[in-house]
């Protein structure tokens, strides 16, 4: 944790040094951005936009997992499904997220449903690929062992297979979250009247770099809280049994 904090401080230091080298209106330093963010908070301008973005992120991630996890598992365990679907996943991965957003807004309308569908569809292929790889590492000798001990299908699924896939599901959540954040902001920029992406675009149009950086800072902080405060804790609880590997 100490090392992590030092590393974070280093990033701020680099930002600050760069800001010294450039005109203040082009690249304000960390202090200016923080003060701007605090002022926005005080005016009550931050929370509503942050809340709606978080809602879209959560919805999009849930949809992406709902599509990507079964798809990846199916591709991992069934050769025919793998042959049929891998090209779909590759294509899905190649299509830029902007295209998903535009297509969804035109087909579904400028609403929350379209936003979440666009986010979910963009992130799903990466999640599918992650699980596809994960399922391939399943040790089926353990399944044989469970069968010897008269374990039924449900028990084998829940207590032998799921724990083996779980690390990949967790990795997918993290990776998915990273992708979903970025898409959410982009989708808000082109089609929503609120949210962090909308605000970023608004301040971009006014060329207010202090505000742009303030909102970027907000975004990063929230991301860190989720990553360290929630995901790391879940991971620690789930995979505490794993040996620590020193390199």
């Amino acid at each position, binding site marked *: 944790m100490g090392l992590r904090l030092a590393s974070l401080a280093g990033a701020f230091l680099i930002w600050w040094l760069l800001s010294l080298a450039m005109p203040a209106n082009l690249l304000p330093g960390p202090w200016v951005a923080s003060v701007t963010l605090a002022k926005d908070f005080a005016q009550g301008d931050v929370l509503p936009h942050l809340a709606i973005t978080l809602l879209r992120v959560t919805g999009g991630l849930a949809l992406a997992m709902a599509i990507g996890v079964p798809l990846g598992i199916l591709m991992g365990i069934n050769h025919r499904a793998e042959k049929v679907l891998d090209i779909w996943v590759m294509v899905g991965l190649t299509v830029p997220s902007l295209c998903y957003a535009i297509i969804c807004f035109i087909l579904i309308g400028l609403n929350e449903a379209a936003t979440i569908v666009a986010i979910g569809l963009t992130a799903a292929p990466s999640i599918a690929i992650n699980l596809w790889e994960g399922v391939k590492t399943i040790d089926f000798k*353990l399944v044989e062992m469970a069968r010897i*001990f008269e374990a039924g299908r449900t028990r084998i699924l829940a207590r*032998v297979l799921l724990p083996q896939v779980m690390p990949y599901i967790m990795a997918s959540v993290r990776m998915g979250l990273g992708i979903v954040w970025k898409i959410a902001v982009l989708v808000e920029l082109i089609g929503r009247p609120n949210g962090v992406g909308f605000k970023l675009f608004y301040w971009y149009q006014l060329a207010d770099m202090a505000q742009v950086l303030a909102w970027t800072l907000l975004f990063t902080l929230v991301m860190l809280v989720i990553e360290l405060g929630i995901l790391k804790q879940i991971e620690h609880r789930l995979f505490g049994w*794993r040996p620590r590997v020193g390199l």
Partner: protein
Amino acid sequence: MNAAVEPAAIAIAGLNKRFGQLSVLRDLDLTIADREFVCILGPSGSGKSTLLNIISGLEGGYTGTVQLGATRVGYLFQEPRLLPWLTAEKNVDFALDSCAVPQSRRAELKDHYFDLAGLSAFRGFYPHELSGGMRQRVSLVRALCVEPGILLMDEPFGGLDELTARRLRIDLLRIWRESRKTIVFVTHNAYEASYLADRVVVMARGRIRDQIKVTVPRPRDYDDPAVFDVNRDVVRRFLAAADVAEPAVPESDPALNPPGGKP
């Protein structure tokens, strides 16, 4: 063995098994008495593991009959096959849960077998915290705790260093004296077979080639010269059996005779 007096633990008659075009077991007859310790000795590809998988029910699709005198079979694989995210004790619990062993008996069974295996102090350890030999011991505890009538073992000490394997063989006999299960133990190590077994069954290319009764009295000493004598006899007959030239498949069908035997 007199089947009329004591019912057999395992009775196999006319067993044939093929993998595609490859004949793995041919016209195999084998009767194993209750509480007998039988070692099946054979080179790689002789069909001995397949035989074990058929007895256990993991492998189907054969012809012939396989009758078991017990409803529950324990199996010790070459690898420990422990669930890595569970402690030694939880791994045993997994088997107890799966086999629906009554709650009231569990504590006693676990105490007994963990103690017998010398693992009482390691019940809370994860597999990666244990040595290879200890992992295999946990696996043995797991197999015994569900109280199988028959214990099948497929080269369970094959992956261990010789010193550890030796200790485990000695302990296995000690545990067996107390629990007296029927054991079918597959190995390619003639000395291991000579030391452990009541009877050594020699297999080659899917058939039983020879059987040797081991009359060394129990409890046996691992370095007893008598075991060495048996070993010499077993090796001699093992080599003789492996050398038997044989038209494996009707010559009219060369496609059925792939070189090199079972993969």
